């Protein structure tokens, strides 16, 4: 569906994107993960035809972006970081304008607009000026704009940034609902977001792909090689010792109120540990599989902490 070959972009001396190669298949939801300034937005802008790469090729549904930019743009719905909304227009008139310039036919216009309003839950505010809507609603209007021509591909640049937790959840649900109908590329610097919505992740840092993985692989990476933290009511060294004897357990230590266990990361071990703790009648209060943050994964992948601009990682 989307093929990216040796895509590079430099701004003067600074190379923002270095020779990216990846493919996106039809119907997939791809997460673009990376810290701020990693080149996510730049890559997305290049795929949408908003800016030209310094070198490299992009083809979408068999059309080359540079030979047939119009054909490619017809197939892409793009939600930039800042929703591109006209504050002095009403939601309906804005969507009407978007639908028209995206080539929706006159007959299909009303249907397309109503459909989009329903999908994005904007029906209740359709007559209001976009300038008077909250940030969450504006973001939805932005998404509606990307959806209105029913494109095959959706490219969403940090769709949840700056929203409150409730709006973030709503946005994620919206994206989940769109799964299956569109091929989606989504960029974010927030790990759980990728887990919530994507099939596959591409992790980039400093303009280079440092890992491509499906969501299971990412989860395994995130499980941090099987670190467990256990809290019990009756803490004794005996519990830790018993756990150490289990197959697959590498280490078991009592630190503070917790027992920290290192395992080989398989699910059976976790199951055994939990039944063991319960069997010992120690009074299991908490058992958590500690997850790695984006930063930890980066350290794991690159052997170096995150570089680039300020890094905000939601732990």
């Amino acid at each position, binding site marked *: 569906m989307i093929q990216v070959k040796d895509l590079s972009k430099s701004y003067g001396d600074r190379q923002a994107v270095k020779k990216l190669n990846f493919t996106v298949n039809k119907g997939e939801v791809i997460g673009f993960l990376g810290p701020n300034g990693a080149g996510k937005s730049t890559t997305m802008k290049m795929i*949408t*035809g*908003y*800016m*030209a790469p310094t070198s490299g090729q992009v083809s979408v549904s068999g059309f080359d972006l540079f030979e047939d930019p*119009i*054909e490619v*743009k*017809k197939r*892409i719905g*793009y939600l*930039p970081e*800042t929703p*591109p*909304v*006209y*504050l*002095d*227009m009403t939601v309906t008139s804005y969507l009407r*304008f*978007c639908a*028209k*310039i*995206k*080539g929706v036919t006159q007959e299909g216009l009303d249907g397309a607009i109503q459909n989009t309003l329903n999908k994005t839950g904007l029906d209740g505010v359709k007559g209001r000026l976009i300038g008077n809507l909250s940030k969450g609603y504006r973001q939805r209007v932005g998404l509606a*704009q990307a959806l209105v021509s029913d494109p095959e591909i959706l490219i969403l640049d940090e769709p949840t940034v700056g929203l409150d937790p409730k709006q973030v959840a709503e946005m994620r649900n919206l994206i989940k609902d769109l799964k299956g109908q569109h091929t989606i590329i989504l960029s974010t610097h927030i790990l759980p977001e990728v887990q919530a919505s994507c099939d596959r992740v591409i992790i980039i840092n400093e303009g280079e792909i440092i890992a491509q993985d499906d969501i299971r692989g990412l989860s395994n990476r995130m499980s941090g090689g099987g670190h467990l933290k256990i809290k019990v009511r009756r803490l004794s060294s005996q519990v830790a010792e018993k756990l150490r004897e289990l197959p697959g357990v590498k280490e078991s230590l009592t630190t503070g109120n917790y027992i920290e266990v290192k395992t080989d990361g398989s699910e059976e071990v976790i199951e055994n540990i939990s039944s063991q703790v319960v069997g010992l009648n120690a009074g299991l209060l908490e058992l958590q599989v500690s997850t790695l943050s984006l930063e930890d994964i980066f350290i794991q992948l690159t052997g170096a902490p995150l570089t680039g601009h300020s890094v905000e990682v939601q732990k």
Partner: protein
Amino acid sequence: MKNILTIAGKDFKNLVTSPMFCFIAALCSVLWSFTFLRSLIMFAENTQAMFNPGGQTPSLQMTVFLTHISQINLLFIFIVPALTMRLIAEEKKLRTYDLLLTAPITATEIALGKFFGAFGAVLLLVLLSALYPLGTRLITTFSMAPLFAAYLGVVLVAGTYVAIGVFASSLTQSVVLSVVMGLIFNLFLWFLSQGAESSTGLYMTSILEHLSIGDHFMSYIRGSIRIKSLVFMLSCMGLFVFLTQRVVESSRWR
């Protein structure tokens, strides 16, 4: 074609329904009501005082309308950049430009759409200004043909200012800079004729004279439609729309 109309329609509607446009239109009509009436009364007094049997009476066209239309032109030099300033500059600033650049439309369609949208709004102002001479028709008779020629000149000159304004707006993100640039471009085009007067070289003088929009405009006000002036102003519009198209297109390559 459809895309041009869509963009033009949106910008026309947004411009005309904006409070700024209504305010400008209202202020213009206040000014014109004052000055037009004054020059009309002066004209009436002069013709009565002037007892000139058999001789030529001063025409309405060359006195009242000429003043009126010169004034429209003067106002437009300042007003048109104010109307066009937001067209592209603000799209850039509010990031709605992303929408236009990622939609399946060409840079030419964007440039033409913006031009026609603003041109439509300015034509409304032209129409407003035409009410004054047309209203004069109610109280006296005069030849309409020179007036039409003069108004054709107004439309062409307004179109040139619009094309310049859209171009200025495409160059920057700042609406203030855009309005200042538009204004200076307009004034520059207007002041070229002064360069022609002071220039000594024979060729230079004639080149500058041809380039000065003032000379072309004056021939229209006097009631003559000259093909070379028509071609000049249309190519001015074409040039600046073309330049706008290049600027829009170039944003993809930067």
